[in-house]
């Protein structure tokens, strides 16, 4: 099979790159060690383009485009970092922090949190926007896992992994706007969910301390989302 017609050449941050036509800007950039921050994206899951952190500048495009869903095109000129984009990303990150009760010092994921890491890499030293301090519940009814809505960033990775990989469709989103909440079944306590298989995939893919395993010490909370691409490849191979 000839692969030539499916190859696109483009330019990311001044570097000439070739990629397959079905690849996104994000995939291509990461293959070439060009860093684009992401939060809702996770290799092995479908893309939703919700966190807006991977927005990049594409020459000729009217707006900034999300790198995770934008396919490469011939002759595309992409810029991943400009002072303007960096400023936008920092403010978007601030919005994440101020939205719910993200207090790192008392979080199980402290030190292993993707949101925290993003703040460090993007240089977000403090949050200027006022914290909203919403009153949100913690559901610890499941024997092995806990969901703490105070730490949730609504990336919907748990929803996607549950539907696309496990096939249980336990997780969903209810409400709208700032009142959105990830829920199990029809907002039943997680422990009483009849669809949940307790596979724990949702916990492994959660980027923050919203979903975590009940262990003795918080320092033991480690997440391993790297099983996903492996699982995908194994399944496709069948």
């Amino acid at each position, binding site marked *: 099979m000839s692969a030539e017609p499916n190859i696109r050449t483009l330019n990311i941050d001044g570097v000439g790159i070739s990629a397959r036509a079905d690849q996104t800007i994000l995939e291509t950039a990461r293959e070439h060690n060009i860093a684009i921050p992401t939060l809702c994206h996770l290799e092995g899951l479908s893309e939703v383009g*919700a966190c*807006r952190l991977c927005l990049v500048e594409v020459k000729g495009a009217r707006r900034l485009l999300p790198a995770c869903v934008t396919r490469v095109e011939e002759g595309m000129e992409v810029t991943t970092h400009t002072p303007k984009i960096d400023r936008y990303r920092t*403010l978007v990150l601030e919005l994440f922090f101020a939205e719910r009760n993200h207090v790192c010092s008392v979080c199980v994921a402290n030190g292993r949190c993707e949101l925290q890491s993003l703040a460090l890499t993007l240089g977000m030293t403090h949050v200027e926007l006022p914290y909203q301090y919403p009153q949100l519940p913690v559901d610890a009814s499941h024997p092995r896992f806990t969901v703490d809505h105070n730490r949730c960033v*609504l990336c919907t990775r748990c929803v996607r992994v549950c539907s696309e990989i496990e096939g249980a469709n336990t997780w969903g*989103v209810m409400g709208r*706007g700032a009142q959105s909440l990830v829920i199990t079944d029809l907002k039943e306590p997680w422990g009483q969910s009849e669809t949940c298989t307790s596979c724990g995939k949702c916990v492994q893919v959660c980027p923050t301390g919203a979903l975590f395993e009940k262990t003795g010490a918080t320092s033991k909370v480690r997440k391993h989302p790297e099983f996903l691409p492996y699982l995908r490849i194994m399944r496709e191979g069948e």
Partner: protein
Amino acid sequence: MNAEELQQIAAAAEEERGKFDYEVNVCMGTSCLAQHSDGIRDAIEKEAEGCGKRCHARRTGCMGPCAAGPMVLVEPAGILYGHVHEADAKEIVASLGAEPVARLDPQLGSYFEGQHFRVLENVGHIDPEKVDEYVARGGYEALLKGLTEMTPAAVIEQISKSGLRGRGGGGYPTGLKWDTVARVKGAQKYVICNGDEGDPGAFMDRSVLESDPQRVIEGMTIAAYAIGASKGYIYVRAEYPLAVQRLTVALREARRRGFLGYGICETTFNFDIDIRLGAGAFVCGEETALIASIEGKRGSPRPRPPYPAVSGLWGDPTLINNVETFANVAPIIRNGGEWFASMGTARSKGTKVFALTGRIRRTGLVEVPMGMTLRQIIFGIGGGVPDGRKFKAVQTGGPSGGCLPEEHLDLSISYDALISAGSMMGSGGMIVMDDTSCMVSVARFFMEFCMTESCGKCIPCRAGTVQMYELLSKICRGEATRRDLDQLTELCEVVGATSLCGLGQTAPNPVLSTLRYFRHEYLAHIDEKRCPAGVCQCGPPPRQADLTGTQGAAVEVHA
């Protein structure tokens, strides 16, 4: 159905009309119906029977001047009555063939001057539930012409030539959209009519669906023929029960007459339409969210591309147009694209329906040629601001639009002119404000709307609107600083640039446009802790002692 049969239906309807000397058309739009216009019609019918006059009391759709409702139109004399009560039925019937009842003159002044009815050409003249009355006024001629005399490409050519642009707000060229969907290969294609009108103060689509549903059905059927679709959906808000009811009847009637279904107009073309009800989410007016909603999923938008033209409903090529866009289709096919393009400005053709509301003397539905100035609409047709107050601003385009001040009153209405002035055409809501409105409060109102209507999928819209709303509230309370204003401006920029769909991208517009034209009001709130319009409670709240005193005084007065 062929041309002869169409003529027969029209002739039969004409003959039916010939049985009467007079026609009394009573408005049965939501606004007039709320004032019991159905009772007025019954009373007129009863009265006419009693005195032996050959008079037909007809249910019709919205005639426009809603503020003067309930409206009654007497034909063939063409006399319009306003503020009619059931008790007036006797007088109206007695006046048939004699002098009109002067007492019931709606005092509309120049309301109809400069208006030009294309979309609304049938309102006030036909019963929206009777397909034959629509046919009698030239309805379905365009469908027959399109199906039997034109190729799909020729239909699209006429639409392109007409220069019609999407009436839902974006203003995307309709011909180009149709052409794109027509070119995409696919065994199954869909046509969707977006009737999820949700802008505060807008009721154009509702009125069109309530008054002339067959026109929308005809437009959709022609579109389906042009792009090769066999299935259509009308997505309409559940908050419009009357529109849903009339549409249901209209679809049934259209099927009965063979304008929908298998082998339409004796051709091999099949098409049918179903209604889907929205569950009251503003974001479902966004096309990808609307599609998700029809599919039975959570109504949240997805990134485009792929556009619905390529991958829409259930992954198939889909054409989505607004109610008013479809309502414009039949006349274009009947009279040709050039006819349509002969009216309007260079890049905005035809007419536009506006819902004129707010602080204005004559509230109602108006249809004006593109290029008319805002002054002509507000002061000519609308009669200006009542109670001797001063005009301050007009808000167009709903929560995605902006507020235009007095110096822009001579702006000619067109998609591009409105956008360059910092507002937008939107679906056609036009809210007039006088000097009793505080522009910061207005901006806050629209931000609150966007905040509660955000679907919550992307962070800038979900959390950014909350932050902006709180900053605006802070300004209204007189507690904000210049630093807050800078933060608000920055949030506007970031939310506008980074949001996923149109809702978030345009949510800052009301703030940006008021900041552009009414910055002094923001500054008065911030620097002087004063609301120039006297709307906001600025400064510290009154002390408890003062409050008790006032309450005591109030009690004394009432006692």
